[in-house]
């Protein structure tokens, strides 16, 4: 019988820990997901926090989730080199059951600024992503996975995302995080049925599922509905719980289901109680369905032997385009201006397919990039 651990995204954040503490005390939290690269502002980590992480580590209930690596940046950066060195050090200190990162490249002028935005799905970017995943696996020496991205420029991109993720993780015998709120965003923003999107993913490679809440943006879709964004600042929508119940039976190798919420959205007692309620609801769904799973082979996603190539792969043209796109998204005053800037940029008439980008999603990309261009302040 396979066990599926009900987990929370647990980081060094007052309000997250305040919300999680009663669940810890009740022994409800079976694993934690730690975003190990979000401590860059700290000289040292408080002992009580490393003790908490160590407890989960020693019970093989710790998973790591990177935020800042910028997997598809066309240029290899010192920040990425430092990120890997830090991961290698932490992997010697803690037992990570696996390490994951986000799809896309980070907009923003330095390593800890910006937000993940998608890239063209081409053989060149596939090679770049595989190179980066191999470096992550070299550093952590444990299973490596990637999360599906909430944001898409077009419905065509949504339709290709699952297959591209599948091809990427092949390089490291890796797995996929299926973020159900990210899919909820796509269901809503592009008017696609959940079952139809789910069929596009290699569900046998799903080892982790995320659920979270988000927000509605004033930007309107063609159906005159507001755009859904993955902001992790609200409770989990009812539809996402329903997605979870539908997805679990289709993911035979699922091991972790993680509830995520930003600490900034957990400042009040009411929001913390709502978080706890969401967790218990998630746990009840997991427990009611876990017994139908078969045992997971122990080495299903085991790291592949052999180091990555000594020289990191780079794509200068892609990097130049990414810099141009970041600048456009962060500085354009409106969608019309952004369109004009894109038509005058190196992104026109090529694999970026900017000509096919949904205007409301371009506006959303601008909102995301402008929100995070100064980092988390």
């Amino acid at each position: 019988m396979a066990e599926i651990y009900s987990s929370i995204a647990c980081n060094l954040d007052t309000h997250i820990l305040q919300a999680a503490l009663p669940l810890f005390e009740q022994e409800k939290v079976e694993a934690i997901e730690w975003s190990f690269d979000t401590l860059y502002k700290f000289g040292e980590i408080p002992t009580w926090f490393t003790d908490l992480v160590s407890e989960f580590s020693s019970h093989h209930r710790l998973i790591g989730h990177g935020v800042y690596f910028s997997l598809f940046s066309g240029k290899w950066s010192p920040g990425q080199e430092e990120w890997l060195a830090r991961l290698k050090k932490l992997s010697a200190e803690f037992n990570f059951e696996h390490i994951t990162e986000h799809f896309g490249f980070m907009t923003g002028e330095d390593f800890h600024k910006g937000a993940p935005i998608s890239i063209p799905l081409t053989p060149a970017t596939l090679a770049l992503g595989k190179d980066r995943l191999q470096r992550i696996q070299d550093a952590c020496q444990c299973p490596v996975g990637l999360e599906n991205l909430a944001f898409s420029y077009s419905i065509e991109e949504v339709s290709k995302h699952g297959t591209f993720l599948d091809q990427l993780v092949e390089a490291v015998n890796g797995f996929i995080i299926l973020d159900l709120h990210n899919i909820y965003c796509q269901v809503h923003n592009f008017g696609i049925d959940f079952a139809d999107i789910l069929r596009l993913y290699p569900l046998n490679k799903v080892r982790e599922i995320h659920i979270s809440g988000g927000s509605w943006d004033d930007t309107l879709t063609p159906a005159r509905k507001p755009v859904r964004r993955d902001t992790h600042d609200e409770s989990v929508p009812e539809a996402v719980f329903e997605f979870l119940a539908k997805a679990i039976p289709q993911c035979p190798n699922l091991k972790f289901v993680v509830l995520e919420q930003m600490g900034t959205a957990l400042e009040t007692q009411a929001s913390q109680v709502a978080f706890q309620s969401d967790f218990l609801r998630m746990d009840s769904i997991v427990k009611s369905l876990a017994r139908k799973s078969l045992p997971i082979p122990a080495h299903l996603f085991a790291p592949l032997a052999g180091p990555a190539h000594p020289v990191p792969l780079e794509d200068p043209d892609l990097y130049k385009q990414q810099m141009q796109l970041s600048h456009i998204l962060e500085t354009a005053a409106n969608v019309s201006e952004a369109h004009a800037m894109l038509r005058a940029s190196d992104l026109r008439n090529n694999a970026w397919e900017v000509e096919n980008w949904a205007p409301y999603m371009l506006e959303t990309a601008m909102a995301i990039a402008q929100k995070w261009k100064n980092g988390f302040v």
Partner: protein
Amino acid sequence: MYSLIHLNRSLMRISKSVLQAVAVAVTVTALATACTDSAVGPNGEKTTKNKTVDPCPACGMG
């Protein structure tokens, strides 16, 4: 029957001393004051040299 077996296998028990330390850190000292140069943690150890501990960005950048 199944549920009891399953829950027992999944249980993750955190030691009381660790839980108490976390509780003290988040409720008494509060992380906002636990991260100045001269701050001390719940067990008297120096915590961090930074001015603020939270909030943490993690995911949610969508």
